[in-house]
């Protein structure tokens, strides 16, 4: 059902855990639907220097979270905003069609974390 890459990120997820001193936090999803992603980012000089996640959800949801935190490190905020469901799925060598919408929340959670960072900066 899942690609070897999805299984790798699911069974050995990267960047798991809370980030107490996060500069931005984004949460997407609803446990009633089965998937919730919380992304933490650390920003320095307009670049994402660190990212972590906590996820409640299926194998795809956990793999997507792991992948998005890997991908985003080192990106500028503008580059990070360009990460999409499609680019994440592609980086994971594809996701089953039924998982594309409900479990592929990594980009949305990341964008919310960036928004959160920008809002905090604005204050």
């Amino acid at each position, binding site marked *: 059902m899942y690609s070897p890459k999805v299984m790798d990120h*699911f069974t050995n997820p990267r960047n798991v855990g809370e980030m107490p001193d996060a500069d931005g936090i984004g949460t997407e999803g609803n446990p009633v639907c089965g998937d919730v992603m*919380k992304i933490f980012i650390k920003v320095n000089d307009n670049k994402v220097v660190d990212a972590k996640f906590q996820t409640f959800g299926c194998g795809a949801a956990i793999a997507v979270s792991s992948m998005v935190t890997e991908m985003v490190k080192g990106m500028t905020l503008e580059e990070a905003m360009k990460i999409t469901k499609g680019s994440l799925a592609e980086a994971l060598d594809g996701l089953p069609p039924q998982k594309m919408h409900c479990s592929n929340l990594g980009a949305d959670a990341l964008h919310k974390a960036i928004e959160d960072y920008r809002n905090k900066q604005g204050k």
Partner: protein
Amino acid sequence: MKKIYLDHVATNPVHPEVLDAMMPYFKEHFGNPLSIYEHGMKAREAIENARSSTASLINAKPKEIIFTASGAEANNFAIKGIAYANQNRGKHIIISKIEHHSVLNTARFLEKSGFAVTYLPIDKDGVVNPADVEKAITKETILISIIHASPEIGTIEPVAEIGRIAKQKGVIFHTDAVASVGNVPVDVQSLNIDLMSFAAHQFYGPKGAGALYVKEGVRIVPLVYGGIQEGGRRAGTENVPAIAGMGKAAELAKRDLQKRIDYVKPLRDKLINNALKIDKVMLTGHPGNRLPNHASFVAEYIEGEAMLLLLSAKGIFAASGSACSSKALKASPVLISIGVPTHVAQGSVVFTLGEGTTEDDINYFNETFPQIISRLREISPYAKGWEGTEDSSCTAQK
């Protein structure tokens, strides 16, 4: 790596003696049972022998057994067949919220064609209250269909009592016994059953063989019209090898039933007792009155499909009623009906044991299961509780 199959409610391997009993009907006795020469006679004989041993397993008469291709077909046949045979007497059917999809969706189909359906509630253990059945019966009621045992939560329903009420009120009673026949003793006489569905692959027979018990004198409209097979009640050239296999499997189940229960129940109890030591893991279904090989849980703060994948990476194969593990992406309606909040139902996991399950398997499982739960909870944002969670409806685009 170990391979521990704990999904016996999904299906079972074919018993070697069953396979041996099937083989001749693929090869030398391949004939059509309607043919009058020896090929046909051999095939005919196999079907009638299978009918006798299948009937004997449930204490029925051979002529009360109609072979079908599955439990789902038997459920469709029973419900549509009784509804259409009795629609002049009334158009009301009673089922419950713990029914299998093949009962539920057949009832919904009939609803669209002008029948009224009552969906009885179940309690927190998944039990249908016979008093609710009695109250729901009207002058229009022609059929009551209540499952014998739930494949999802293992609960065994008070079918004998419901059957007694149905008999008293003159309403036909069907039970879906797919999950129970071959796992617990089922006697259609003492359970007051008019029609009963069951399937061979639940008791080490082949897939593609099921049966509907129809009590002598109960009139039923066929689902499949055509020739005179199965007394004109189910047309189509018989699946002779599968039917022969079902007969053999029924014979073995009758012989070994108590032995199988005595073997599997202590192992299942050991699994349940260990799992319930884990924080925020709860048993679903009735604690005592449940299928002897069945253990089902919800583990809070984590999701069922993720559990199944990690378990399978450790060589343990099981099932879940979570939204993500279903093709429909919806949490199990049965879990919702017993009052499990939707977000908790996502942590559903079901383990069903069988003849091949060993003490070593259960020890290994008992070591592995808590590790997998901890691992997923380390990833979960809810590891400390469901803060910020409301049991709202899911509006995600699916």
